[in-house]
């Protein structure tokens, strides 16, 4: 195994593979920054170039791109409140308020460093689990996945506002999200739900336009109303100094960073859950780590831990999502399906061979994720001061640009005008939620998990009747879920504090 690891590194350090990785990384840098254009769609555009490459050149090229999009996607989320990628939405919740407070540099420093640690953790995780990967993936069948989703849904309790009314608002938000996830053609009997005669809605609501509308549009309206720059009246000098502080923040919350990286990696390995979920679970975990209610109240208003958590998780999942594709030839997302196509073009057959005959190549993929992220973060840190200064550009100049990016970002989801309409509708809903102080993350959690929960509950019941409830793994996970759900109440009772309404 050590031999294969070293051989993998040697592959990456050869001139041509290294150059291809740099080119891929440079493409990924921009893809991440631009909202909407995702890693999966870009892989599709890059595939024609690999026909004539060797696997040693093509994999660094493709993965170099794919593994840095979340890192730079976080930058857009922090600076403008627009999700650069579908899996960098949770970074907005605290990252953008930090930018508004004039702490863009600090937020960027923190998110980039936590992204790097997350990516390295993910690569390390992938490297050590490669020998035992098959039983691990096979252990999570539909019932286990369903309970894991329930576990994710308990995060609503953490992501909601304070007090009993806060929880009620959170649950209602989650319920509305759940309802929105039901839009489209039902999978079990083919019934059309809430499609209002629109073909566009047959496939359900796309995540990107919903997220952009929900998070970016209210901020654009707010920015226009305020008429000032994103960072208000904060001077240039103060902005630049924050980056080091942000990096220090990451290291002073090192265990949190590692725990969130672990959440990302573990959720990434389970086909079906993916990055969109892990960022929120890790955000909720970060919020849960607040010791007092006052501290907890800072989440959503610009707490650096709310940036570090999702930053780490959305990068650590990168290595882990490769596992089902490499070990089983079963891609877990559109992006991974494109990668599988590339594997076949290159003459590689995913499956046991990748873990024995081509082990060095598999490890070279691990190295690509690590090296590409180190280079990307180093480059970003060099320019961080200049990037952060974008938050001091006055509103009349920056607002139309952000609006344009919102439109382009939403439109690239399906290349349909429907995307724009969805973005605007959810923009209005998001705006009123912000105005009436309704927490938005529970909605997103309900929206992402609703479809998954429905699907896995149905499969569990069809395949096992009610017997799945007695599966040992299900029982363990259910106990964990109950512990998670009741933790805030037990904690409250133990500390005997009154929670303000």
């Amino acid at each position, binding site marked *: 195994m050590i031999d294969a690891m070293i051989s993998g590194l040697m592959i990456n350090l050869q001139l041509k593979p290294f150059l291809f990785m740099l080119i891929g990384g440079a493409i990924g840098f921009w893809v991440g920054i631009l909202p909407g254009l995702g890693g999966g769609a870009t892989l599709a555009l890059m595939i024609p170039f690999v026909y004539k490459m060797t696997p040693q050149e093509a994999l660094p090229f493709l993965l170099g791109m794919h593994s840095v999009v979340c890192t730079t996607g976080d930058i857009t989320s922090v600076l403008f409140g627009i999700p650069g990628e579908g899996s960098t939405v949770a970074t907005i919740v605290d990252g953008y308020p930090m930018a508004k407070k004039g702490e863009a540099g600090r937020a960027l420093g923190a998110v980039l460093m936590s992204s790097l640690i997350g990516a390295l953790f993910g690569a390390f995780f992938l490297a050590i689990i490669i020998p035992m990967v098959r039983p691990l993936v096979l252990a999570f069948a539909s019932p286990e996945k369903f309970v894991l989703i329930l576990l994710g849904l308990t995060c609503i309790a953490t992501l909601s506002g304070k007090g009993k009314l806060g929880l009620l608002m959170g649950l209602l938000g989650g319920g509305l999200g759940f309802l929105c996830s039901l839009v489209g053609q039902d999978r079990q009997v083919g019934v*059309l739900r809430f499609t209002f005669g629109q073909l566009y809605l047959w496939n359900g609501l796309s995540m990107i336009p919903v997220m952009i509308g929900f998070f970016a549009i209210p901020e654009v309206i707010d920015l226009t109303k305020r008429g000032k720059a994103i960072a208000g009246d904060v001077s240039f000098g103060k902005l630049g100094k924050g980056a080091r502080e942000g990096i220090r923040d990451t290291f002073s919350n090192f265990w949190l960073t590692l725990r969130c990286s672990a959440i990302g990696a573990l959720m990434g390995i389970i086909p079906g859950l993916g990055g969109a979920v892990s960022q929120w679970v890790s955000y909720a975990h970060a919020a849960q780590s607040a010791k007092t209610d006052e501290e907890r109240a800072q989440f959503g208003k610009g707490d650096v831990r709310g940036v570090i958590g999702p930053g780490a998780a959305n990068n650590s999942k990168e290595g882990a999502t490769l596992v089902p594709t490499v070990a089983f030839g079963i891609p877990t997302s559109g992006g991974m399906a494109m990668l*599988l196509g590339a594997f076949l073009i290159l003459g590689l057959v995913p499956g046991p061979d990748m873990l024995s005959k081509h082990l060095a190549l598999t490890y070279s993929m691990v190295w690509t994720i690590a090296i590409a992220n180190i280079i990307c973060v180093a480059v970003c840190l060099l320019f961080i001061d200049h990037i952060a200064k974008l938050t001091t550009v006055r509103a009349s100049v920056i607002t139309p640009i952000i609006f344009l990016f919102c439109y382009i970002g939403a439109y690239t989801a399906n290349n349909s005008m429907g995307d724009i309409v969805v973005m605007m509708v959810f923009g209005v809903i998001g705006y009123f939620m912000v105005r009436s102080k309704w927490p938005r993350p529970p909605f997103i959690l309900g929206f992402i998990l609703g479809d998954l929960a429905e699907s896995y509950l149905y499969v569990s019941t*069809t395949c096992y009747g009610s017997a799945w409830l007695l599966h040992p793994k299900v029982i363990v996970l259910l106990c964990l879920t109950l512990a998670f759900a009741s933790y805030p109440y037990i904690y409250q009772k133990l500390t005997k504090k009154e929670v303000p309404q």
Partner: protein
Amino acid sequence: MKKETLLFIFAFIVTITLISPETLPAAPSYQGKTIRIVCGTGPGGGYDRTARLFAKYLPKYLPGKPTIIVENMEGGSSIVAANYLYNIAKPDGLTIGVINRGLPFAQLLKTEGVKFDLTKYGWIGSPTVETNVLTVRSDTPYKSVQDLRNAKGPIKLGSGGPASSATQFPLLLKAFAGIKNIQMVFYRSSREVALAVEQREIDGQTTGYSSFKPQIEKGIYRALIRGRVSEPGIENLPVDESLTNDPIGKKLMALRSGPDRIGRPFIVPPKTPNDLLKIIRDAFAKACKDPEVIATADKLEMRLEYVPGDECLAILKDLFNQPDNIVKEFSKYIKF
């Protein structure tokens, strides 16, 4: 004098150009032009992979070697793309569509949202046929059709949804071939179905033969029944139609397997001029037989078998020419 001559030549050229363009047919050339292949499914699937394969190799055979790009237009199982090609795209030979082969059922069953008539498109053809095979995991006790018929417990088969051929094929077997214990389990995608089979959550699935050939050859999956369309290597498998004596059942199975022959259909918008359609058809036919394309397709686990556009059209016309009672019976099992 010189000026007058020039004016005369100019007037002559303009007149000739304006009044009789047909008399000076410049051979249509795609030089410097960009053709779009509108793919009705998302990136990563079989249709998308086929579209991208031809985006790469088709220019070699088109005059002027144009650039071809692929644009994914998902929605309504390709209905969105088909509507776009029928109602919006210009018939100028610069837009090609790759659509779901199940769309004929949408038209036959008058599915909501269908704003096209498939017989009016210009049919380029298909580079593959898609053979449906019912497969089970090798470690299940089902080794023959009789084993399936005698099964005591449910035979759990995975699929992506009720409108998928992976559902339609086994449902007809359940209704007409005496395999009563088939139970369908629907997953979010065919990728999840494959994983569920590995996890032993389900027993098998109906799948396109080409995409599962390696697993069948390695003995991971066992193929038990195939549809009417065959491929080398599975000619001797029992055909679904031969497993029933019910004439209606036979008819429905035959109708269901019709679109399998038009595997990955390539079309152009209606009213595309015949000369342009001919150029694209010829280029497509040549590309399907190009050894380089065949070799690349082989790597992608696709077996190329060129099906001409006229043949695709004939299959469609036969499908749409059924009496009402057959269509009614068909709609009990086939959804879109």
